[in-house]
């Protein structure tokens, strides 16, 4: 596991009081590198590398002794988080991608080519108000395009977690970020050769969840919160959501089922009716590929009315972006369990880890509607408004899980309250799943 903490202030902690630069950093609410490491790693577990490396810059008087510090530029080394090995680096290697999980925590400004360091890692987290990421800063933007923009607007935590999708989570301050990083670390395996970690779990795996029997509203047009479902089935209601503010029509994140880490993907009916669009497809696809790369089983909750129609989406290339999610689910060889809670319409149904994409266990709740599209739209297209009773007939025929179950597209229709139990049982059985793909240099996902 590689962890990158940008802007590791290189001054030994013992010098905090003496050093002017630290005093000025303090007013920005930042910690020094060694203070960060103290919070991130288990006590006394840090072994530092390259402490004696100095910068080699000689221009503008940088080579004078007052501008030289031992342990300059970055702090790197090895330590433990809850007993498990972690490497703290400032630069990573593309070759490590898919071998060990890599996480970047942006704790200060990061500009120019340096932004590609976090961009190449699996997860990028930011600290609110004190961290920025941009290719070119506000001054350059002003001089080139005459656009007035602040650092915060251009590349602050809010911009990257809600607008650009560059960062995956934002935290209140350095301490909050580091403590959350420790917790996040516990979800992840150390490498692609390790299984998803299993923690000691006090939540019974056969716990029934009675509220799920009523969570889907009677009116099929009414929204509900997919997070309610996820929290209620997960161990101890804990869910570490990834990109909670971006493309909110899809929910992705990590939870545990009977102690074992799982990746959860779910359509969010509360936002844009849970439809798939360009951003949600890309968000989902990247998450699915991470889970597949690191042996984390995938649980998918489906309530999707379709792909978002319109020129904006078609011109934006929804076909190739939607294909990413389809590709990611299809190529994934980790255990895949899917629960259709309500709508599973058309192509979007296919994409959402359907049986046709080598799903291991695909379930439908009694409220599920597996069909090409909703009754109203279908009847309009088929009968052009000539058949008055056709809609009721369509609802009767297709707005239920039975046609799909009869064809084997869903393995069972389950009582929603038993969902947690079913998933936990399936995960036990699927723990030894192996599936090999034909030799290739790498697959060609439609980027």
């Amino acid at each position, binding site marked *: 596991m590689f962890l990158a903490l940008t802007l590791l202030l290189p001054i030994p902690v013992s010098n905090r009081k003496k050093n002017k630069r630290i005093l000025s950093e303090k007013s920005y*609410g930042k*910690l020094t590198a060694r203070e960060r490491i103290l*919070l991130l790693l288990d006590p006394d577990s840090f072994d530092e590398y390259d402490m004696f490396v100095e910068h080699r810059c000689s221009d503008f008087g940088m080579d004078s002794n007052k501008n030289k510090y031992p342990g300059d530029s970055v702090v790197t080394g090895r330590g433990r988080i809850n007993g498990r090995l972690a490497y703290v680096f400032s630069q990573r290697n593309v070759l490590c991608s898919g071998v060990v999980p890599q996480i970047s925590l942006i704790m200060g400004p990061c500009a120019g080519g340096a932004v590609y360091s976090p961009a190449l890692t699996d997860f990028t987290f930011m600290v609110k108000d*004190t961290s920025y990421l941009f290719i070119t800063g506000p001054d350059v933007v002003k001089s080139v395009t005459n656009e007035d923009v602040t650092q915060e607007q251009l590349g602050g935590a809010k911009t990257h977690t809600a607008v650009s999708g560059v960062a995956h989570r934002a935290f209140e301050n350095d*301490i909050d970020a580091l403590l959350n990083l420790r917790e996040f670390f516990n979800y992840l395996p150390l490498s692609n050769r390790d299984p998803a970690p299993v923690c*000691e779990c006090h939540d*019974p795996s056969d716990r029934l969840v009675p509220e799920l029997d009523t969570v889907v509203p009677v009116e099929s047009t009414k929204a509900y919160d997919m997070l309610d479902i996820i929290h209620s089935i997960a161990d*101890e209601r804990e869910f570490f959501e990834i990109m909670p503010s971006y493309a909110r029509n899809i929910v992705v994140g990590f939870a545990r089922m009977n102690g074992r880490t799982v990746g959860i993907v779910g359509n969010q009916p509360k936002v844009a009716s849970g439809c798939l669009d360009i951003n949600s497809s890309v968000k989902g696809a990247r998450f699915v590929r991470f889970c597949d790369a690191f042996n984390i089983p995938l649980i998918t909750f489906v309530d999707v009315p379709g792909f978002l129609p319109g020129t904006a989406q078609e011109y934006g290339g929804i076909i190739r972006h939607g294909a990413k999610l389809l590709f990611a689910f299809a190529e994934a060889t980790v255990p895949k369990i899917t629960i259709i809670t309500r709508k599973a319409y058309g192509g979007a149904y296919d994409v959402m880890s359907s049986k046709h994409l080598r799903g291991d266990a695909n379930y439908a709740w009694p409220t599920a509607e597996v069909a090409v599209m909703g009754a109203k739209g279908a009847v309009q297209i088929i009968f052009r408004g000539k058949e008055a009773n056709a809609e009721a007939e369509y609802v009767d025929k297709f707005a239920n899980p039975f046609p799909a179950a009869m064809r084997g597209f869903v393995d069972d229709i389950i009582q929603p309250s038993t969902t947690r139990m079913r998933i936990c049982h399936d995960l036990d059985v699927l723990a030894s799943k192996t599936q090999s793909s034909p030799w290739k240099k790498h697959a060609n996902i439609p980027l």
Partner: protein
Amino acid sequence: MGIKTVAIHSDVDANAVHVKMADEAVCVGPAPTGKSYLNMDAIMEVIKKTRAQAVHPGYGFLSENKEFARRLASEGVTFIGPDTHAIQAMGDKIESKLLAKNAKVNTIPGFDGVVKDADEAVRIAREIGYPVMIKASAGGGGKGMRIAWDDEETREGFRFSSQEAASSFGDDRLLIEKFIDNPRHIEIQVLADKHGNALWLNERECSIQRRNQKVVEEAPSTFLDPETRRAMGEQAVALAKAVKYSSAGTVEFLVDSSKNFYFLEMNTRLQVEHPVTECITGLDLVQEMIRVAKGYPLRHKQADIPINGWAVECRVYAEDPYKSFGLPSIGKLSQYQEPLHVPSVRVDSGIQQGSDISIYYDPMISKLITYGSNRAEALKRMEEALDNYVIRGVAHNISLLREVIVHPRFVQGDISTKFLPEVYPDGFKGHKLTDLERRELLATAASLYVAEQLRSQRFLGTPRIPIAKSKRSSWELSVRLGDGNYPIAVSKDGSSFSVEVDGMKLNVTSEWNLASPLLSVTVDGTQRTIQRLSRNASGDTRIQFLGTVYKLQILTKVAAELSKYMPEKAAEDTSSILRSPMPGAVVAVSVKPGDTVSEGQEICVIEAMKMQNSMIAAKTGKVKAVHCKAGDTVGEGDLLVELE
């Protein structure tokens, strides 16, 4: 009883408990009560369709509606309740008082008219009996009201009031009425059949109220002696007989500090708090009502009605007790577990895990009843039951209920209808921790934190890269609770923790099941059931302890020390924004963008659960944006209006 039942429900209640329990269920309309539960046409339709023979109206809604009873009668359907005549007579405030007077039931004595002089005032006051209240008849409410406890005060009161009556109102008439000091609300349950038999089933003490709504009830009352009880019971029965009452009913009395009691009103239906009477008498009131409606005579004689033990009922509401003893809260019950494992507990509820508490109905979650061979036992069980009640997803009043039942005044039985405002003059603020309790809470929280940390190092299976086993057995923490920061040292001592707080060592043991909503923790031999409501990686923890929810932040000493370098995030300037204090519907918006408002000016009106709340501007300024319009439904904390 072998009776098949049909439940009616509104469309939002389609999954309600009563619907599931009934043999059949029919939807009578959309959520607003006027269109469903009060919609007589729809309900009559259902009765015809299902060929129901009798209707139990429950409490509230149509239970005291004579029109409904009349329509049922015209269709030949039995109304499980009294005759329309009794409903009508008791539904009218003036008529019921007259009837009561004629049936020789104590009513509040008084005189309303011209009083010649002070001597006459004294004569009237003596007739009524001290203390008396004197005021100008024309003055509304409590305005110009004077209380006189003896002749001297009566003369003085007469002088002031008659002057005021003449000068302020130009009306000489005075009202002299019995003043009921420290009134208690005590009611008598009656049960009558159609054959002229009537019984009194003892009293219920319902003095703990907020905004005239009962919160805690018990039976019997600590205040009544057998003579008063019999006198009240006999008068209640006399009244029931006078109106030819049949079915169960309740006669409400105000009782003053000298055990004088006065008729208030009669409720011609089953009361919410009827379970406490059932507990101490052993009668099933609903069953008796059905028998009576069928025409059977009563099975019991007055001498058969016992007082066995003591029963207490707490009304558990989805409301925030920190706002005027309870403002409604809405939401989904994400977790809900009734304390049925505690002995002698009865929970009457219509909701379950996953239920929505909506703005359409009374926000009552349940009635929690405990029973004991004596009052102390019933109260002890109530404490336990409240601690073991799991309600998540909505605000609830468990903290207030628990504080009331352990308050020394309540425990001694020294209560009145003014109990809450007297005991909490500045509003309810939750439990106030003693030093010992605070140490217990801190030790428990710190131990929970360490238990969690230890668990997060325990991975199952054998990983490829060995996990470094921590040999750590002691932790230095810093816990923030309220305004205080407490350094705490925890060391592991076998399966328990030894915790040092404020220089004192406490021993904390538990099973440390971190998934269970209820945690049994023993600190230095004192066992308590606590609930950890939430935790996060940043150390923020919410613990329900002695009924009240406490927010704590638990950090290692190192993290706490470094916290001082973290920037203070500027809090939102709340004076220029107006947020909804509770969920409800916007009734009216009095401003539009660009308007200038002055401090204290009404900006909009929110209605929630029958209450209208005026939202006022916190400062003078120009309206920047209005985010709501009349008719909107808003949630707690929703932005309504922004000022510049």
